[in-house]
Each structure stands twice: as structure tokens, then as C-alpha cells.
């Protein structure tokens, strides 16, 4: 469904991705793990068109999408829920969700998805009229995921959904990610919390300084001595 072939991305002169190749098949949860600065976020930003790769190809459902602008990639069915949630703080929760469906014209479908998101995250329902900036961190994360779902994406790119959240909330968010996947959305999940990410993913990639270090089924990575030592705390 999604394939990266030898992708190189630069920030100015900094060579951030040094030849990333990966695939995501329909229906999967695939996770990218790795430490800070390994290139996980850069990979997602390159896929969603916020950054253009200097080399390599990105294919999504038979179309080449590297170099296409971000709003067109969203239109193709890739939703990116960015690192740090990036809620529109001065817009209300409802407006944030409506913006998620910005490109859609099917009023009934939008309404349906609006209800679906509020069923997934009941706490947002009480806060529809509040500015996004007044929500707690956990609620903002829920809103960010809900907003991404409003475009009814074929694939959801999630960047660090656990960041800065209390453990009980993290568990909740991950349960919901599994549920979203079960409802038919493919997920590419970037996480620092490697144990948790591998526990819900079918496959994983380990990134290190812009390269893929290891790849394989999640269970195998979980057992690998190397991953244990570096990312699972021994």
C-alpha cells in the first residue's frame, strides 16, 4: 500500500534520512521505533509531503507521491497526526474536527465520522465549544487523532501519540489505536515507547541516525537482544 524506496531527506545541509526503505501493507499496524533524532518524525513528514525527499521514491497505492504537496497527499487518503498534537489552539474543538474533513463534500459521511470520533473519544463531546488550546494534554491528543480520522484516511500516520501523557492515558490511546485499526484503517506508528508500540504492531522498523537498523515482525523485534538492550531497557 505504502512503499518508500531508498529515501533521502535533508534539512538544509543536514542529511536526516540516509536511504530509508520500508513498506506498509493494507490493514497493518507498522511501527517505527528509535531514539531521539533517529529520523522517525522526518520519515513521516517526508511521506505526508511536508518535506520533499532529495532522492528516492515514495509510492502510495500505485501512485508516486514524493514531491507532491502536502494538501494533495491528504486528499489521496494519507492522514498525518503530527508530533506534539498541533491542535489549532484558538479554534474550537468542533472547528478542529471540521477542519479534519476540510476536503470532503459528503455531508452525511462527515456527520457519520463526526459521531464515530465522538464515540471513540467521549470526552471531546463535552468540550465541542471550547477552544482547542484549553484542553488537557490527553484530550488534545484525542482531538488530534480524531481530527486526522475526520478525513476518513486509508492510512493514518501517528507521531508519538504517547508523548507527555500519563501511563493510564497512554494505555487508553493505544487501545483506541488498535480499535481504529480493527475498523479498517492502516496505521504507521512512530513511538519512543518501543515496548508498547511493538505490543500492538504487526511489524516494526528500528531507526538509527537516519538509517533502518533492524526490521521484522513485532514479536521478533521484541525478543531481539539488540532491541531489548537499546530500547526496552534491558
Amino acid at each position, binding site marked *: 500500500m505504502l512503499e518508500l524506496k531508498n529515501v533521502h531527506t535533508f534539512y538544509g545541509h543536514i542529511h536526516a534520512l540516509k536511504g530509508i526503505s520500508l513498506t506498509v501493507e493494507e490493514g497493518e499496524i507498522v511501527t517505527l521505533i528509535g531514539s531521539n533524532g533517529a529520523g522517525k518524525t522526518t520519515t513521516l513528514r517526508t511521506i505526508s509531503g511536508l518535506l520533499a525527499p532529495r532522492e528516492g521514491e515514495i509510492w502510495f497505492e500505485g501512485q508516486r507521491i514524493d514531491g507532491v504537496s502536502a*494538501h494533495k497527499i*491528504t486528499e489521496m487518503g494519507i492522514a498525518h497526526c503530527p508530533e506534539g498534537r498541533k491542535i*489549532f489552539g484558538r*479554534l474550537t474543538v468542533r472547528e478542529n474536527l471540521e*477542519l479534519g474533513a*476540510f476536503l470532503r463534500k459528503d455531508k452525511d459521511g462527515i456527520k457519520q465520522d463526526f459521531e464515530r470520533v465522538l464515540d471513540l473519544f467521549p470526552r471531546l463531546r463535552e468540550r465541542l465549544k471550547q477552544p482547542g488550546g484549553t484542553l488537557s494534554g490527553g484530550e488534545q491528543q484525542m482531538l488530534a487523532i480524531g481530527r486526522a480520522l475526520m*478525513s476518513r484516511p486509508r492510512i493514518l500516520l501517528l507521531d508519538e501519540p504517547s508523548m507527555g501523557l500519563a501511563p493510564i492515558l497512554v494505555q487508553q490511546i493505544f487501545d483506541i489505536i488498535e480499535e481504529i485499526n480493527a475498523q479498517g484503517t492502516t496505521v504507521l506508528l512512530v513511538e519512543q515507547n518501543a515496548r508498547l508500540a511493538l505490543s500492538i504492531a504487526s511489524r516494526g522498523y528500528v531507526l538509527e541516525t537516519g538509517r533502518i537498523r533492524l526490521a521484522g515482525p513485532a514479536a521478533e523485534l521484541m525478543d531481539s537482544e539488540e532491541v531489548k538492550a537499546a530500547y526496552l531497557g534491558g
Partner: protein
Amino acid sequence: MTIKATRRARTLPDFTTLILWGLGGISLLVILYRIFVVLTTQEELTATIWGFQLVNGLVLGGVYALIALGYTLVYGILFMINFAHGEVMMLGAYAGYFTLTYLNARGFMETNPILTLVITFVAGMLVSMLAGITLERVAYRPLRRAPRLVPLITAIGASIFLQNAALRIFGSKLRVYVKPSVIEGGFRLGESGIFVPRTGVLIFVTSILLMIGLYLLVQYTKLGKAMRAVAEDKDTAALMGIDVDRVIVQTFMLGSLLAGAAGVMLGFHNSQVNAFIGFIPGIKAFTAAVLGGIGNIPGAMFGGFFLGLAESLGPTALGIPSQYKDVIAFSLLVLVLIFRPTGLLGEVLSEKRA
């Protein structure tokens, strides 16, 4: 960086700040005392004079507010001061002039005065809109990723270019706006006898209507939501599927439409137009936008009326000739920049740009 800056602000203000605040306080007291003296001694300041200045201030304020909205809309999205905005307005004023003159010569104005006004406003707004879009495309878009100072200097260049291009094309002679008979003259308000010019009523009402229209558009339409999203975070807006470049163009369009209307209003208000009429009102409107808090839409409306009223009521209240109105306007700018750089209504900006 940010942490350091806030910590410094929290501790005791340093010496220069204290002196500045002291000076500010003293000047405020002097001004208040002066107003008190004028009000208690000058007998001839009747309600008629005050009323006339009040009306004048509201009319000017409406024009300033419309132009200020253009500055603020563009700033909210691009963090750039479009100093050529006054010239965009000037082009609208010329378009209005040519439309009026043409319709007058054809005798259309005589028979359809109201329709003539509508057509004049539409023509001014459309021409300004085209000018705004062209400006964005030619002068600003290529500099989107340049440091912030670069488009600012370009804007000043564009402003000078447009002034002189207009001078070359339209000549240096004064062009006189003909007024349809419906907005000639004026009437006296009730017992007080306050004189209200019909042009003033037209300007005030039109500006209020346009502002309500803009507010509704920004609050409730898809474009408005997209604009607010782009103003907060361009990358995330693009992830929602918003075409950021298109929203930027549409923002310029909106701002320029309002400027075009303001240009026609100024034409009626001053009864004339030349290539340089954009400059002073442009800077005044910029002042108004800063007064209210630049980037803040209600702030620009408030700032426009505040400035208009300060300019017209100020000289009367202080007992000085009205030629000093520019001094009052720009003193206000300086004071606001020193004591409340985020503007009278603006808190938004500081938290976002910190």
C-alpha cells in the same frame, strides 16, 4: 531563550523601563490636565462642535478600520507588514474616480444615483483586489522563505513603485470626485443641530456592513476557518488538506477588497484623488492595526475607530489646531509600541510568537 526572557520580565523592571513608565505617567497627567483646563475654560465649545467632531471621527474611523483590516489579515497569516496596502487602496480610489466620471458623462448617474454608487464601490474593490493579488504573486510569494525583513523592504519598494507608476499613468493633476446628488450636503440632527454630511453616513454605514460581512466570513465559512488555521500553523493546515498558497491569495483578496472600498470612501470624503493619497491613510491604518493589536481582527476595527476619534476629538479636547492631528496619531503609535507592544486588545500575538 524563551525561559530567560520571561524570567527577566517577571523580576523587577530595570531602570530604563521605570523611567519610561514614569515619563508615560507624567505625560498622561499633563494631557488629562490640559483637557480639564480646555473643557472648563473654553465656553465656545458647544455640543455642535463636539458632535461634528464625533461624526467626523466615526467616519474617518470607519475608513481607517477597513484599511487596518487589510494589514491585520495579511499579518495574521504571513507575519509581514504589507506597506504597499495604502497604494492598493489608492488604485481602488482611481478606479472609483474613473467609473464615476464615466457614468456621470453618460448621464447614468443622474438617473440611477444609487446604482452608480454601487457600481463605483464594486469597481474600486475589484481593481484593488486585482492589485492585491498581483502584488502577492509578483512581489511577495517568491520571498515566502526569505528572512522576515526581506518582504518588508520589498513592500516599501512596491509602495514607492505603485505611487510613481500611478503618477506617471494618471498624471499629477488633481482628479475631482463627482458626487451623486443623493450624497450631497447633509442634515442636522434633532435639537442639538449637529451637522451630519450624507457622505459620512454612506461611509460609516458601508464600512460597518463590510466589517460585519468580514466577521461572518472569518467566523463561519470554510474559507474563514481555513484562514484561521493557516494563521495558527501552516504545516498542520496543509495536513488538513488546505492549500496554503491559495488561502494566502484569498487573504490578500479580502484585504484588498476592503481597501478598495476604503479608497472610494476616501475619494468621496476628500472629494479628490491623486497618486499619493494612499500614503498617509496607509500609515495611519497601520497605526490603527498596531493600536488594536496587529493580527487581531476585532483589534483592527477597534483601533481604526479609536484612531479616527482620537484624531478628530483630540485637537478640540486639547485646544490645539486640528493640523496637529497627525502628531496625535503617531504619538499614539509610539506610546502603544512602548507601553503595550501587543496592542490594546492583543494578547494573542505575544503568546504565539514568544
